[in-house]
C-alpha cells in the first residue's frame, strides 16, 4: 500500500487505465480456457445428469477421486512442460513404482513405510536420470522419456513374472495394516465429520449389513488431499517463488535464461524429479486403494496428464502455463469421464467428448495467449 502512496502525482492519470484493465486482467488469464471449460462441463452434466446421483455424496466422491488422480500427475507434467520438457514415462513410472512397493513390502516383507520411502527415492533418481540424459545429450525429452516408457514398463512386467510367476502382486492392504505411511496414501480424513453428517441425515448411510448406520461416504481419501496439496504447492512454487521464475525462463528461452544466470539445467532436472515424484504419489495411493500392484497400471497416463495440462492453458513448447489451469483441466477430464457414465451415455463416446473439449480449449487458449503475450 505504501507503493501507491509514493507516486500520488501519477495515480490520477493511470487510474482510468488500471480500472479498464481490472476486468480485462481478471478475465484474460491463462486459466480462462480451463474456467470456461469447467463451467460448461458442470452446466452440461447439471442439466443432463442432475438426478443420476452424480451430485450426491457418493457421486461427488466418485468424480472427485478420478479428477484427483489426473490432478496429481498433471501438476508434475505442467511444471515440466512450462520448463520446456516432456515426460512420456509417467504412466510406466506409475506401474513401476507400484510394483516396487508391492515387491518390497509383500515379496521381501519390508515394512510398508520403508517400501514406500525406498520406492520414492528410486523413482526420483530415475526422474533425475531422465533429466540428466536430456541435458547431457541435448536430445528432445520426447525421445529420451519414450525410451524410459518402454524400459520401465518392461521391468514392471519382468520383475513380478520372474519373482512371483504372475503379473499382479496382492496382499498389500494386509501388509499396510496399521502402517503410518501406508495411511498417508491409503487412508481417509475427516471421518468424524462424515459420521456426524450421516447421523444428521445430511448424507446417506448404510441401511443394512455390518456397516448399518455408517455413512456410505465415510471420509475424504488421502488421494484427494494429495491432489489439493500438490496443486497448491505447484501453484505457489510457480507463481510466488524465485524458482518459479526460473521454470518460466528455462522453458521460455533456455539460452536467454542461461545468459541471465538462471541455472537452467538444474531447474529442468528438478522438474523431471518432481514429475517422477508425482507419478509415485499416484502409484502409492493406487496400490493402497487396490491392495495390489499390476503390470498394466498407469497405461497411457502420460497422455492424460499432458491433455489436462494443455486444456489448462499451458503452451506445448514451454514457457507459459498455469498449475491452476492444469488442475481445472484434470477436473474437466474426470468429470467428463465419470459424468458420461452417470448420464448413461455410451462410454465409447468419452473419447469423442474429450477430443472436442481438447480442441475447443486449445483454440480458446491460443487466442487468449496471443492477447497476453503479443505472439503472432
Amino acid at each position: 500500500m505504501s507503493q501507491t502512496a509514493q507516486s500520488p502525482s501519477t495515480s490520477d492519470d493511470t487510474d482510468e487505465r488500471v480500472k479498464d484493465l481490472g476486468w480485462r486482467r481478471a478475465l484474460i488469464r491463462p486459466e480462462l480456457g480451463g474456467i470456461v471449460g469447467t463451467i460448461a462441463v458442470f452446466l452440461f452434466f447439471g442439466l443432463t445428469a442432475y438426478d443420476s446421483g452424480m451430485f450426491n455424496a457418493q457421486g461427488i466422491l466418485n468424480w472427485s477421486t478420478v479428477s484427483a488422480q489426473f490432478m496429481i500427475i498433471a501438476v508434475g507434467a505442467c511444471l515440466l512442460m512450462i520448463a520446456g520438457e516432456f515426460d512420456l514415462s509417467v504412466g510406466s513410472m506409475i506401474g513401476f513404482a507400484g510394483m516396487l512397493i508391492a515387491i518390497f513390502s509383500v515379496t521381501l516383507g519390508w515394512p510398508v513405510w520403508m517400501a514406500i520411502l525406498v520406492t520414492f527415492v528410486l523413482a526420483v533418481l530415475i526422474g533425475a536420470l531422465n533429466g540428466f540424459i536430456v541435458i547431457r545429450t541435448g536430445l528432445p525429452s520426447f525421445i529420451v522419456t519414450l525410451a524410459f516408457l518402454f524400459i520401465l514398463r518392461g521391468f514392471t512386467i519382468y520383475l513380478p513374472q520372474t519373482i512371483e510367476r504372475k503379473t499382479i502382486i496382492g496382499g498389500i492392504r494386509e501388509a499396510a495394516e496399521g502402517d503410518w505411511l501406508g495411511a498417508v496414501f491409503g487412508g481417509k480424513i475427516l471421518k468424524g465429520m462424515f459420521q456426524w453428517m450421516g447421523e444428521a441425515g445430511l448424507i446417506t448411510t448404510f441401511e443394512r449389513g455390518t456397516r448399518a448406520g455408517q455413512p456410505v461416504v465415510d471420509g475424504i481419501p488421502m488421494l484427494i488431499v494429495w491432489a489439493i496439496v500438490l496443486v497448491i504447492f505447484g501453484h505457489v512454487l510457480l507463481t510466488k517463488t524465485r524458482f518459479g521464475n526460473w521454470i518460466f525462463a528455462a522453458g521460455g528461452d533456455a539460452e536467454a535464461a542461461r545468459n541471465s544466470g538462471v541455472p537452467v539445467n538444474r531447474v529442468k532436472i528438478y522438474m523431471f524429479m518432481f514429475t517422477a515424484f508425482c507419478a509415485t504419489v499416484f502409484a502409492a495411493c493406487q496400490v493402497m486403494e487396490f491392495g495390489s500392484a499390476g503390470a498394466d497400471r498407469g497405461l497411457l497416463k502420460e497422455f492424460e496428464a499432458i491433455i489436462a495440462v494443455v486444456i489448462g492453458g499451458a503452451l506445448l513448447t514451454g514457457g507459459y502455463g498455469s498449475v491452476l489451469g492444469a488442475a481445472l483441466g484434470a477436473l474437466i477430464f474426470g468429470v467428463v469421464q465419470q459424468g458420461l457414465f452417470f448420464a448413461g451415455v455410451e462410454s465409447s463416446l468419452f473419447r469423442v467428448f474429450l477430443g472436442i473439449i481438447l480442441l475447443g480449449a486449445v483454440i480458446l487458449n491460443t487466442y487468449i495467449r496471443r492477447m497476453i503475450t503479443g505472439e503472432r
Partner: protein
Amino acid sequence: MNTRTTHAPIIEMKNIEKHFGSVIALAGVSVEVYPGECHCLLGDNGAGKSTFIKTMSGVHKPTHGEIVFEGKPMHFDDPRDAIAAGIATVHQHLAMIPLMSVSRNFFMGNEPVKKRFGISFFDHEYADSVTMEEMRKMGINLRGPDQAVGTLSGGERQTVAIARAVHFGAKVLILDEPTSALGVRQTANVLATIDKVRKQGIAVVFITHNVRHALAVGDRFTVLNRGKTLGAAQRGQITPEELQDMMAGGQELVALEGSLGGTV
C-alpha cells in the same frame, strides 16, 4: 593529448583467441574498455564480434589470451561470475523472453525475495514497482508490470534489457547489435539510451556493423575482420569516411586474398 587515456581501463582483453574445433573464430584480438566510454566493435557478419564479447561475458572461455578486469586477471567460469563482477550483456537475439512479463524478465536470474514463515517468496510488489519506475526513467510507459515483453517493440525490448543491466549495477555493459533489427526512430531511442548509460560512468561495448550508429555514440572504435583486429581508432582521430574505408577496405582485401589464392 586525449584526457580519456589517462585513467585506467576497467577491462583489458589481451590477445584473445577462441577456437571451435578446427574453426578459429578469434585469432588474437586485444581491446581495452574505459569507464564512461562507449567502445564500438565493428565488423561484417562472421567477423567474430559475438564470439569476442561472449568470452568477455563468461559464456566462452578463451582458448588463449588474458582478461584483466579492474587491474586483476579474471577467469569467468560461467555468465554468473561475469554478472557478479559487474559485466552485463544484452545478447544479439536473446535479450528477453517474450512470453514472460516485463517485471519477470527484468528480475530474471536476480529475483528479489522476501521471507514469509521462513520461506523465501518472490517479492512481486518490489519487482513490479522497480520495473515501472525504471521503465518510466527510460521513457517507456508500460500498461502494467505484468505486460508481456512480446507486446513491446524491438527498441523497447533493448531498452528494457539495458535498464535491467544498469539497475543491477553493471560496470561494463555489452550490447550485441542492439540496433540491427530496428527502425530509424527506435534506433535513435536506443542510441540515446546508450549515451545516458555512458554518462553514468558505465563502460559500454557497442557492437554494430553500421558506421553511422557507431559514430553517433562511440568514443573508441575497433574493427574486426575474420577474427583479427583490422584497425582501432579514437573519436576525433578518424573521420566517418576513414572508418567506412577501414571496414570496406577489409572486405576488399578479403576479396583480393580469395581471388589471388592467398599470394598477397
